């Protein structure tokens, strides 16, 4: 029986559930020293002097650095965001380190700062990077921005905004490095061990063969660990120079400032449409506040290129401006550009419907792309699907109209509930991925995947795929990852690509190994053979796959013992419809998410149990974006939501009930797995659905109320409820 498609519980759980998982802070080679950073309290300042002499006079302090191989600390003698590193100390333990960090004296000359991207673009604004001549980090144009919005019977203009949020993976970032005189081993809480290895080797002038990067168990990332951060290189450099193991683990408050934030995009738009709700044209200008350094390249470009969403809007153009401000650098966060695009276009669809007094579903139906593949005005080619058919199926499976009627009845009883719907198409998967499938001497198999899972359950999914391909039991396949001593290249887990790119690589490697073993079996048996269920057979007899493997190991047959596959994966496009139900307290403006239903055509689903888990988690992050979370900077450039006590990561109390469905007859991608990816769907679809649900509820009291920015805090909702 095929394993793919079955809700198999994770095989990687045992360690985690026994408290035996090994996260970064659990790695401590004997004699490990502890590193920490002196960080700027100012958003923008010149660093005049760093005096570490008092700290270094403590015998428990081993070293202090204001520069190390790798990126410069305080480049050009300036800090550009609150929390930027100025110096690094290394001490014998965490407590000594904490004492010593207090004793470093830094003279700063505070500089005028800017935290508002609109102000950052004004003439005379303080410049973060003087050599750049302005605070513009990047501009681009997609489609035909000049033509878009020319002639349409109706035109609507407006501005929308998606706030800055903190990814807040439960495990903060950290790195441990140890040099044994020959090999420098770097353990990092990262999504990209291959990049860590390359950057560390490059900074130290070491050949790759002498640097090993290991990704231990990682306590969540959501895109916030997919660049190589300066700390990773500096800690590795210190371990190399000192010849002693060095560890750095961020405190939560440090992580809030030193790990990339997400989203933070605004859209100015002009949409042209006719009386039936058919959208004729869409013009947009996206302003993205990238913070102090352009670490998150491409986020606004993706948002721009997906701005027309699943709708066939022929005349469209977008301009993109990325702006430097004195904030923590922006980076990828679950969805990375698609949540913003989806929020924008879904809000626009709702507004068009409201302008015309039409059912928002009607307007969407009138505009949905018909006939795939379809290339949107920005050159993105949606691969497979039946958007109108999936919408109709979704409306009935999700009970959308029933929920609307129920909301009416509840209102008649005095309860303020709202129902919101969103539709999305998103782009997943890119680049190459690697896999090695190796036959072990007993006929079991080890798969090394180039992906870098950190909670998704990719190891179980890939084991299902490989076990199916080899026709062996799941228990015969073990999947490992995250160590450049096991596999030297890959990209990693991000962009909902792991099962599609990594799974396809593993599937093809397994297929090739199986073919090679078949040839070996033919030598052994002296005839053509067939294979099924772990057994080769022919006219002269039969052999178990393990027998063939052993014969190769012992030189009695020749054939491959492993297959290395590099798979180049083109992008693919999941599509779906989500519905959120919220209850609004008219007295306080507090919003409680009650129910969340989803219907997704994400291609083949390898493991529904794990795929549902991805939707749940993603949805709650989208709910947090809609209602609770925001990285707030005050006028002085302080991050005032600076830790988990001040920042609203949703708790048990804020989580709705999820009812997840996948399309009964999904549209496969072109990839061998037929999958499209599920990791980011929830975070993409949930925010606009929840926002519409709040609007729907509020309009019982205030007809015409409109939400244009997130989060919909109690204060904001309370204001919407008032005349």
């Amino acid at each position: 029986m095929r394993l793919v498609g079955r809700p198999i519980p994770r095989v990687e759980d045992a360690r985690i559930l026994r408290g035996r998982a090994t996260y970064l802070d659990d790695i401590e080679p004997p004699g490990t020293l502890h590193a920490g950073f002196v960080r700027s309290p100012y958003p923008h300042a010149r660093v005049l002097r760093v005096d570490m002499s008092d700290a270094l006079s403590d015998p428990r302090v081993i070293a202090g650095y204001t520069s190390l191989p790798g990126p410069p600390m305080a480049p050009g003698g300036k800090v550009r965001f609150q929390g930027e590193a100025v110096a690094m100390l290394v001490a014998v333990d965490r407590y000594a380190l904490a004492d010593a960090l207090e004793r470093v004296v830094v003279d700063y000359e505070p500089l005028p700062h800017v935290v508002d991207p609109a102000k950052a673009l004004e003439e005379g604004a303080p410049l973060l990077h003087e050599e750049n001549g302005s605070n513009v980090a990047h501009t681009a144009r997609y489609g035909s921005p000049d033509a878009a919005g020319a002639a349409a019977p109706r035109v609507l203009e407006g501005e929308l905004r998606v706030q800055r949020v903190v990814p807040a993976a439960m495990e903060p970032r950290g790195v441990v490095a140890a040099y044994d005189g020959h090999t420098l081993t770097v353990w990092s809480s990262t999504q990209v061990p291959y990049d860590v290895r390359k950057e560390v080797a490059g900074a130290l002038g070491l050949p790759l063969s002498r640097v090993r990067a290991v990704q231990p168990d990682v306590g969540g990332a959501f895109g916030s660990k997919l660049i190589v951060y300066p700390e990773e290189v500096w800690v590795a450099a210190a371990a190399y120079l000192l010849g002693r193991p060095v560890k750095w683990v961020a405190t939560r408050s440090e992580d809030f400032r030193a790990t990339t934030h997400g989203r933070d995009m605004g859209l100015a738009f002009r949409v042209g449409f006719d009386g039936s709700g058919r959208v004729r044209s869409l013009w947009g200008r996206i302003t993205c506040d990238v913070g102090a350094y352009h670490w998150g390249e491409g986020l606004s470009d993706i948002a721009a290129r997906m701005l027309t969403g699943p709708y066939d809007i022929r005349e469209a153009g977008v301009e993109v401006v990325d702006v430097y401000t004195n904030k923590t650098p922006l980076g990828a966060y679950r969805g990375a550009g698609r949540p913003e695009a989806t929020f924008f276009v879904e809000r626009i669809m709702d507004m068009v419907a409201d302008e015309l007094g039409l059912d928002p579903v009607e307007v969407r139906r009138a505009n949905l792309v018909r006939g795939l593949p379809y290339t949107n005005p920005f050159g993105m080619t949606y691969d497979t699907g039946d958007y109108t058919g999936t919408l109709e199926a979704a409306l009935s499976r999700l009970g959308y109209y029933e929920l609307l009627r129920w909301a009416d009845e509840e209102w008649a009883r005095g309860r303020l509930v709202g129902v919101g719907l969103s539709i999305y198409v998103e782009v997943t998967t890119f680049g190459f991925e690697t896999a090695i499938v190796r036959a072990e001497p007993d006929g079991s198999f080890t798969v090394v995947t180039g992906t870098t899972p950190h909670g998704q359950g990719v190891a179980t999914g890939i084991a299902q795929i490989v076990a199916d391909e080899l026709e062996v039991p799941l228990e015969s396949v073990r999947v490992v990852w995250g160590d450049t001593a096991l596999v030297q290249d890959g990209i990693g887990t991000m962009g909902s690509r792991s099962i599609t790119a990594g799974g396809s690589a593993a599937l093809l490697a397994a297929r090739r190994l199986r073919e090679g073993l078949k040839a070996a079996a033919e030598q052994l048996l002296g005839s053509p053979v067939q294979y099924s269920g772990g057994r080769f057979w022919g006219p002269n007899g039969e052999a178990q796959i393990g027998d063939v493997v052993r014969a190769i190991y012992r030189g009695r047959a020749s054939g491959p013992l492993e297959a290395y596959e590099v798979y180049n994966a083109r992008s693919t496009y999941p599509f779906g419809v989500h519905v959120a139900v919220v209850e609004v307290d008219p007295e306080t403006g507090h919003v409680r998410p009650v129910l969340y239903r989803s219907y997704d055509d994400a291609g083949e689903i390898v493991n529904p149990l794990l795929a549902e888990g991805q939707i749940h988690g993603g949805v709650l992050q989208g709910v947090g974006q809609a209602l609770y979370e925001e990285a707030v900077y005050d006028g002085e450039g302080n991050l005032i939501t600076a830790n988990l006590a001040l920042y609203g990561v949703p708790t048990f109390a804020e989580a709705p009930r999820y009812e997840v469905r996948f399309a009964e007859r999904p549209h496969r991608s072109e990839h061998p797995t037929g999958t499209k990816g599920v990791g980011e769907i929830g975070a993409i679809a949930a925010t606009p659905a929840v926002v519409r649900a709040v609007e729907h509820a509020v309009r019982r009291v205030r007809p015409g109320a409109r939400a244009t920015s997130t989060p919909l805090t109690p204060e904001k909702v309370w204001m919407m409820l008032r005349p």
Partner: protein
Amino acid sequence: MRVGLRVNGTFHEVDVEPRALLVHVLRGLGYRSVRVGCDTATCGACTVLIDGRPAKSCNLLAVQVDGAEIVTAEHADGLLERLRKSFNAHHAAQCGYCTSGMLMAAYALLSRRERPSEDEVREHMAGVLCRCTGYQNIVRAVVEA
């Protein structure tokens, strides 16, 4: 200062700095299931049982709990095994960083209440944050353990 702790049934006597946090002392003793996720006593990743009640071990000094009976997620008994099975069956752990805290909070609840309702689970466990699962599978796992 000398502190005596019984952890998962094993007695330890340790010399600690007066300011040493219980979480660091437990991790130093090898109980690495006790995780640090914040510096404001908010996340609950460090939750252990102290004399049968759940407590955030980052918010206590080791010297405050001298003589205490402590249970961590490394512990093995019938109830914890049931919880582990149920967490696995319901896919209640993703990255796993919150999981020790979740198991400990659930263990405390189920120790005094056989069949809690969903709402009771949500209320009782609200002190532990999870960024991955969206919570529903954890609730199911505890209700059906």
